[in-house]
């Protein structure tokens, strides 16, 4: 059962996404701010991280940078989720080291496909 870390500050979105992911058969753990997200990523070593970008304390770009600069966590695929639909966001997501990118509101089927892709890549 792949473990997914969901870093999201909005409670409703966190609840909704984690429940839907669980229904798809993932084990979901969640963090509500950037620092907690960073800590949990390091301690729990999830198989994949869904990272919101506008987070309190430390934003998603920073958490991603930190994780990607850390030898032990850099292998974890990160999908950035952003409500900002500016074209620069996409570029910045990849620049910061994200493995994929999606806009909110989440198109669940699409997101699921992305998760599947990354987990398959990781396994192989």
């Amino acid at each position, binding site marked *: 059962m792949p473990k997914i870390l969901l870093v999201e500050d909005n409670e409703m979105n966190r609840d909704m996404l984690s429940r839907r992911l669980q229904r798809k058969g993932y084990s979901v753990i969640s963090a509500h701010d950037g620092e907690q997200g960073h800590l949990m990523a390091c301690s729990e070593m999830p198989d994949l991280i869904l990272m919101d970008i*506008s987070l309190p304390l430390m934003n998603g770009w920073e958490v991603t940078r930190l994780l990607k600069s850390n030898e032990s966590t850099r292998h974890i695929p990160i999908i950035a989720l952003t409500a900002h639909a*500016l074209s620069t966001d996409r570029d910045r997501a*990849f620049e910061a080291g994200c*493995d994929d*990118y999606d806009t*909110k*509101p*989440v198109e*669940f089927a699409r997101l699921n496909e992305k998760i599947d892709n990354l987990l398959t890549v990781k396994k192989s």
Partner: protein
Amino acid sequence: MILQNLSIKRKLTLITMLTSSAALVLSALSFLIYDLVSFRHLLIQDLMTQAEIIGYNSAGAMEFKDVPAATATLSALTAKEDVVTAGLYGRDSKMFAHYSRNNNVIPSLLPAHSQDKGYRFEGGYLQVFHDVTLNGERLGTLFLQSDMRQWSVRAKRYAGILCIFVLISGLFAFLVSSRLQRLISRPILHLEDTMRMVSANRNYEIRATKSYGDEIGKLIDGFNTMLSEIQQRDTALRGANDELKSRTGELEKEILHRRQTQEELLKAKHVAEEASRAKSTFLANMSHELRTPLNAIIGYSEMLEEESRESGKSDSVHDLRKIQSAGKHLLSLINDVLDLSKIEAGKMGLHLENFDVAPLIDEMTTTLQPAAAKNGNTIRLHVANNLGAMHADITKVRQILFNLLSNACKFTDHGTISVDVDQSKFEGRDWILFRVSDTGIGITAKQKENLFLEFSQADASIARKYGGTGLGLAITYRFVQLMKGRISVESEPGKGATFTVHLPAQVVAETPESARSTTSSEVAPSSEESKTRKDTILVIDDDASVRDLMSRFLGKLGFHVVAAANGEEGVRLARQVRPMVITLDVVMPECDGWTVLKKLKSDSALAEIPVIMVTIVDNEAMGLDLGASNYLIKPVDRDRLAVLIEKHRAGRPATITGATAAPFISNPPQRRRESERRASGKVDHAKDLVSRR
């Protein structure tokens, strides 16, 4: 010549005097000469007569050689004062008797011998020889000598009289001429005076007085005419000058006015730009704020739908779909607003790629089939065979077609929607032509005017009946423009409308991003030379006390601090120093923090430097949107700032390796797939939404 420089007065007097004197002297002289000549002749005649008488009287004495008698005869000459000497010569030409006025005169004065008869002048004397005859016989010769005393006395007197006469007449001529010359000289002098006055005072109103009708009078007339002419011109010139002055004044006022207007306009422009920026920011924020709850609405409804379907409660599935559909409609509206704000803010870039046109058209018609079916419409496709590929932003082409097609579906009831796709060639370029025609309600000429403007629908009733935001065509229009294409519309109200879009087959990116990359590449070489300073922090803040505090605080932590008092300087210093971290204030005169941030992030050499916003403006989303790494609100929590900077010090080099190690480099198609999915996703959920115009 002295004469030539004399005044005209003198000249005239002199001329008159000289002329009259010369005439006088000449006439007097000729008269004098004539008189003297005739007087001399008279004297000669007189002396010869005298000689005849004396000769006759002394003939007897000569006959008888009576010397005393002859001498006595000669003595009769005493009565004649001018006869100086006389002598009688015998036949032998020897002196016979003689006479002298003064007896003591030496007889040697007399010629020794008698000479031929007649008269002659000799040594100022008149001499006469006369034959003394008796009864036809020559007895001897009589000699008389006169000193012409009478003649010289007369000549002297005449000379005196002439002199006096000349003097008197000269004086008289002087008097007369000096009076008469005024006739000529006075008007000339007056003219001269007038001229001098005119030229000295530059007063062209003075006129010379005309005294007589002669040539000088005409001269004065001419002079006066000339003066009036000059006066007129002078007046006209002065008038023109005054006018020019007043015009210049008016112009200066005009210029001043224009400058003021310009300044006002500039201010207004700044205000408008600020407002526009604020609007874009607001829209970006709003869309963010709206999407978050929407995220939950769509997500929960989708989840519930799945659950309901699994648990067999199919009756609620339909309603949950409606919630999803409404949510997705709302999302697409928000996306439109955001798109438009991005276009307006100049942030809408083009992601160009090669794709085949025909599959895209198929995809679009399939997507819109449900929307067409809803109103009982049929879609007819006419796609040229040899279309091939085009190089453009597929997402935007898709959206253009989607908007046109969904409009056509929306405004047509039980009609036909034709889609023509063809290629054409003009202006030396290849174009792809998309034509969407419907048989719907059409557009009036008046509605056409505002068709492509934001938020404008054909009229209010349309909005009520068909819904929509009025953004669809505005966005379509902007996208077409962005790709340097053309859009046009033909319509007959009640019979349908035809939208024609021409897009270049090879779209050339001329977006702000590409413009920026050229600038930054120009800047890059110089900035590459200077290496990033590991411990330097650039503080950009217009408040001196903040700069001071930050410098001290960061200095204590062991950082080297460079401070800039305004945005421009900040960007310049950033290029020069390449600091490790930049702290940036937002509210600054002229170039605000947002602008500075944009500049920093658009410069490839500086984009990687983390920027920490330190400001009183509470707009974290904006800051992060523009690329700031962190957002701190004043008054600054120093510990937090220290932690952040420390993190950047630790994380910076790793970030760079992290970025290069990012999978998208090794796996670029993934990135493209993502963009396609994103675009198609928009279409997917658009299937359900109520179309808008």
